[in-house]
Each structure stands twice: as C-alpha cells, then as structure tokens.
C-alpha cells in the first residue's frame, strides 16, 4: 500500500501531469471552434436557402453517422494521399471540431426551431428586419435553450479526447498506458487516470450547471411551442 502510494506521488506525477496538459491543449483548441462550427451549421440549416441548408444537413448526417475514431483515422491516414499531412495533434483537433460541431449544431438547430413563431411575428410587426428579429429575439432565446445540450457535448469531448492516443498523440490516457506498460501496475495507473478524468468532468459539469443557473430567466424553460 505504501509502496503504491509512493509510486503514485513520485513516478506518476510527471508523465500524468504532462498528459493532462496535453489533453487540456486538445480540448481548448477544439471546443471554441466546435461551438462556432455548430452555430454556423445550425444557422445554415435553418436560415440558409435550399442549397445551403441541404449542404449543412448532409455534413451533419455524415459526421454524426461516422464513429469519431474512424473520422480521426480518415483525417490522419487518408489526407496525406491528397497532399495534406496533419500532425497527430492537428488531425485530432480537426476531427474533434467536426464531430463537436455536428452534434452541437443539432442542439442549436432544435433550440432555434423551438422559439415560437409568434416571437418573430411580433418583432417584424415592430418594424425589425428579418436579420434584426433573428439576432435580437430568436438567437438569444435559442442560445439559452441549447445550453444544456452544448455543455453536454463539451463534456463528451473531454472524455473522447482520449481517442487522440490512437493517433499516437500522448495525452493523459496515452501517458497512462505508457506508464502502466513500463511498471506493470495497470489497475493502479488506469484507476488514477480514471479518477483524474472523473474530477475534470465533474468540475466541468458543476461549472456548466452554475452557468445555466446564472442565465436563468423565470418561466423561460416552460414556454415551449
């Protein structure tokens, strides 16, 4: 027991911390762009003309239907044949952005559609242009409604960032695997790795719940179409 504890404190700290930072860099690079992509796809699906909305739908369906790991493999192994070689980090981030964007766009799209049509009618009757109605009335409400779904997707991303290891990018899970293989203490190492993920996910969930509470508007949630 003491032996294990000593091992945790001395040998594991270094590699696992590096791995955690690597995971963090993956997530920080992916989340903002994933949200941005999701937003653009959702707006394209709802407000784009027939061509744009069909393109956006197709992109979303294709990316949602493809397992994330396969998407990563395609980006990392197949793109070089077209002249674009991505690093493991680059391919991972690109894949996460695409996946996060596709799933997030579904939540945002649903939220936009759930804003009652009367809101737009009232905005237009006051002389607001369609753009103003969308910007000042529909989107603020849609943003609040999509918050739970989007924060879910971000947490999903925190967990699935571990797949970057399959492209040989050493983040937290990869660091753990290497550590465990060297020391043969698989259960211990992966348990610690697991606990670290649990903590990160739990803190993130808590912060998102806080954010939702802060942005709450009385009676808003119950007003559905």
């Amino acid at each position, binding site marked *: 027991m003491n032996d294990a504890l000593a091992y945790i404190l001395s040998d594991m700290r270094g590699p696992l911390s590096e791995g955690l930072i690597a995971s963090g860099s993956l997530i920080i690079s992916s989340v903002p762009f994933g949200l941005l992509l999701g937003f653009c796809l959702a707006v394209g699906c709802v407000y784009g003309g027939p061509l744009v909305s069909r393109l956006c739908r197709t992109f979303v369906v294709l990316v949602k*239907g493809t*397992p994330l790991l396969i998407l990563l*493999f*395609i980006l990392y*192994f197949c793109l070089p044949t077209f002249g674009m070689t991505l690093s493991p980090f680059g391919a991972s981030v690109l894949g996460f952005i695409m996946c996060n964007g596709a799933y997030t766009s579904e939540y945002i799209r649903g939220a936009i559609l759930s804003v009652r049509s009367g809101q737009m009618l009232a905005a237009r009757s006051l002389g607001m242009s369609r753009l103003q109605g969308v910007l000042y009335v529909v989107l603020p409400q849609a943003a609040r409604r999509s918050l739970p779904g989007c924060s879910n997707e971000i947490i999903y991303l925190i967990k699935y960032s571990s797949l970057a290891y399959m492209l040989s990018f050493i983040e937290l899970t990869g660091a753990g695997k290497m550590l*465990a293989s060297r020391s043969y203490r698989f*259960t211990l190492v992966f*348990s610690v790795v697991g606990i670290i*993920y649990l903590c990160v996910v*739990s803190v993130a969930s808590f912060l998102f719940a806080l954010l939702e509470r802060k942005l709450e508007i009385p009676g808003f949630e119950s007003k559905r179409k």
Partner: protein
Amino acid sequence: MNSITIILESLPNIAFGLFTTLGLVLAALTVGFLVGLPLGVAQVYGGSLVSWCVGVYVWFLRGLPNLVLLFLFSFGIFPLLGLDLPAFFVGATVLGLRSAAYQSQTFRGALLSVDPGQMQAARSLGMTRITAIRSIILPQALRIALPAWSNEYPILLTDSSVCYAIGVMEMLTRASFQVSRTSAPTPIYLATAAIFIMLNYLGMRGLHYIEKRCSIPGFGYR
C-alpha cells in the same frame, strides 16, 4: 480502377467484422437493458441509500472515457481477478456496463414522468407496490423511454469502434489490417465509414418502425 478493386478485395474481410460490430452493439444493448432497467427502478423506488449507490455507479461509468474503461478492465481488473477473457467479452462487458449507466437514467426519467395518479389508482385497487410497478407503471414508462432509448444504438455503434484499442476483431480493426496490407488507406477507411453510416441509418429506421408499432393513440402527449 485501383480503388474499386481494393475495396472489393477487402470487403469480405471487413464484412466479417460487421458481425462482430453488431454483436458488440447487441450485447451491450442487452446488458445495458438488463442492468439499467433494474437500476433505474431501484433509483426511483428504492429509497435514498439505494438511490445514492446507483447515483455513484452512474457517475463513475459516465464520467470515465470509454478508452480508459477498456484499458482498465482489459489490462487491469480482469487479469487481477485471474480472468483471461477474449477481447470481445471485455468489450461487450465494458460497453454494456456503460450503457447500463446511461439507460438507467433514461428509464429513471421515464418512470418519473408517468403521472403519479397512475400509482395512486393502482394502489387504491389493492395492488402491491411491485405489482403496480410491473403492470401499470413499467408498460407506460417503457413506451415513454423508447425514443431516448433508441439513441443508445448510434452511440454504441460509435463506441464499438473504440474496441479497436483492445484488439476486438470488429470492423475498424479489420479495416486497419487491410490498410497495412494494401497501403491504401483512403478507399478502405472511406468505405468503412460508409458502412457505419448505412448501419446507423438502417438501425434508426428500424427503431422508428418499432416505435410506431408500439405507440398507443393519444399516449405520450404530456
């Protein structure tokens, strides 16, 4: 055309992986249901201690990445218990336990959304709690849960490919073998992705059909 030949050549091998993939998904769905439904019922009707325990299980299984769970069980826990299981069983177990965590919450939500008056009516007729749950609450809850439960299918389909990491011979593993054999990643991985997209689509259509068959007129509009 070279690409077409490569795809046609590798397809049989990859197709065998199809059975493994679907096997994983089905096994996980089943384990998830058999474990998740009782957990959900226990969480709603079992009192605060039981509810808390289920909560911890769910927190654990949902908070850990798939990959870490697979490694943990495959290299750590099972060897520790002296079990030398084939990779398929490890994968099915991990995916199943994880799915059980998610499914338990789906069932919990469905159980809670059944009108409390239903239970009152059942008890007033003299039914015991268990009979009421089995005959009155569950049939309604399961119907309510069906759309959300169907979401497990595409999720498990995606997660099955992660079992590549522990060497399960599902489609992605076989595809990557073909790639190292032919050095032609593009046609093979794209074809594999296409197969998954098809599986996704067909599965959702099938589940939709089941949903329609099971629906009761006017039910579910709350």
